[in-house]
């Protein structure tokens, strides 16, 4: 599992470890990561880079970074530096840093670049930290601007392909798909549903946090955690609401007790959950996926490991879906209440009041 301390800007990231990271780990980082071979052919391309460059990962892997994907880098300052870095071989520095401006057709991005050599392999990493996003620079010739998705795939088969406004491919996932997934799990391994869907939500939330950071950077050149709490709440709520998961509301009335309550109205998961049948599987808590997502996003903003647990759900007959967010250290107290069959925010609150203050386990 990726340590949250590592989801920080490149200055605190051990750049020499980039090659040891899985693609999933690189996708959770809030800065761009591109791996090139010695000729400048793209080998790896993480989610943040894909989001800010508005390019499909599948379209850029195997292409020349300098010649095809980012012609704006065909300068002595960037490509020249890269060629010299490669030519120096193992005798050269392990890393170099420099500033640059990426010129896209949709805007200019002021970045800090770290060029890293990993081991003896013919593989080099670019770690790209966006500092500022601005309007396109008019003086840049169009042929020097970085490629758009449609430039890389002019003949893309359009049938069967959906793209959003940022050129990201997506699929329309109707509520019955999730009901079918739940039914499959109930049939094959019902005891795994909560763990599976929570972890799925956490993995989704890590990518959502990257997406939200990019969105905030583009709209105001700030990071999510610098924005007012009210604005962050609205952004997170909008992220879920605009995708049809329901509308979250943040209740801060128990923050002095270290508890944040999120109430989710019109939850798609709760409303698509299978009905409880006599002797059938329990369906009283259905929103683990959203809870996992919230825990990852809020952990990213808070810079510490938080836990979000659904404690009552419309699927189980409650009036609302309630998700509590607490420090991960207090997990056992909440899980004990839920395991005992108690539901609702007040039951959790009482249990946490009785539980001793926990030592900090991770940050």
């Amino acid at each position, binding site marked *: 599992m990726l340590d949250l301390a590592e989801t920080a800007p490149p200055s605190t990231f051990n750049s020499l470890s980039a090659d040891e990271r899985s693609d999933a780990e690189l996708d959770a980082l809030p800065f761009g990561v591109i791996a090139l071979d010695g000729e400048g052919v793209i080998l790896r391309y993480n989610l943040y880079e894909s989001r800010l460059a508005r390019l499909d990962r599948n379209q850029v892997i195997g292409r020349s970074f300098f010649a095809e994907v980012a012609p704006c880098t065909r300068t002595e300052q960037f490509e020249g530096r890269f060629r010299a870095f490669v030519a120096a071989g193992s005798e050269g520095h392990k890393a170099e840093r420099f500033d640059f401006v990426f010129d896209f057709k949709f805007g200019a991005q002021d970045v800090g670049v770290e060029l890293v050599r990993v081991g003896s392999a013919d593989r080099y990493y670019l770690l790209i930290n966006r500092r500022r996003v601005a309007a396109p620079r008019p003086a840049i010739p169009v042929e020097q601007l970085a490629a758009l998705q449609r430039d890389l795939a002019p003949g*893309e088969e*359009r*049938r069967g*392909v*959906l*793209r*959003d*406004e940022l050129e990201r491919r*997506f699929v329309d996932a109707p509520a019955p798909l999730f009901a079918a997934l739940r039914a499959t799990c109930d049939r094959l391994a019902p005891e795994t549903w909560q763990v599976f869907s929570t972890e799925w939500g956490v993995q989704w939330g890590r990518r959502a946090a990257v997406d939200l950071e990019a969105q905030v950077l583009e709209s105001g050149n700030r990071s*999510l*955690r*610098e*924005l*007012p*709490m*009210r*604005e*962050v*709440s*609205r952004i997170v*709520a*909008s992220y879920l*609401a*605009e*995708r049809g998961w329901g*509308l*979250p*509301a*943040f*209740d*801060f*009335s*128990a*923050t*002095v*007790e*270290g508890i*944040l309550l999120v109430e989710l109205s019109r939850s798609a998961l709760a409303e698509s959950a299978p009905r409880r049948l006599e002797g059938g599987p329990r369906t009283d808590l259905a929103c683990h996926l959203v809870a996992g997502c919230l825990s990852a996003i*809020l952990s990213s*903003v*808070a*810079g*510490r490991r*938080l836990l979000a647990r659904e404690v009552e759900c419309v699927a189980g007959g409650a009036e609302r879906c309630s998700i509590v967010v*607490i*420090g991960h*250290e*207090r997990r056992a107290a909440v899980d004990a209440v839920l395991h005992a069959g108690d539901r609702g925010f007040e039951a959790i609150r009482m249990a*946490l009041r009785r*539980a*001793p*203050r*926990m*030592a*900090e386990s991770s940050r």
Partner: protein
Amino acid sequence: MSATEGAVGERDAGAPRRRRRVAVVVAEVTRGASEEALERPAEEFLEAMPWQGPSPDPDGLDAMTFLTWL
């Protein structure tokens, strides 16, 4: 060609389908905190929360719980 096939063919002949997310009005999604608190940077707001649980009042705890907390 059936009516359904015709409809699909016509739509696909043009530009690719694009989705513009529906703007959902989420004007107010917070409660239980003061205006002043909600204007604080999120990092600062969340940092101030006692995530491990509030510090106990020594006068209100039995000895064993207090020692556990210590």
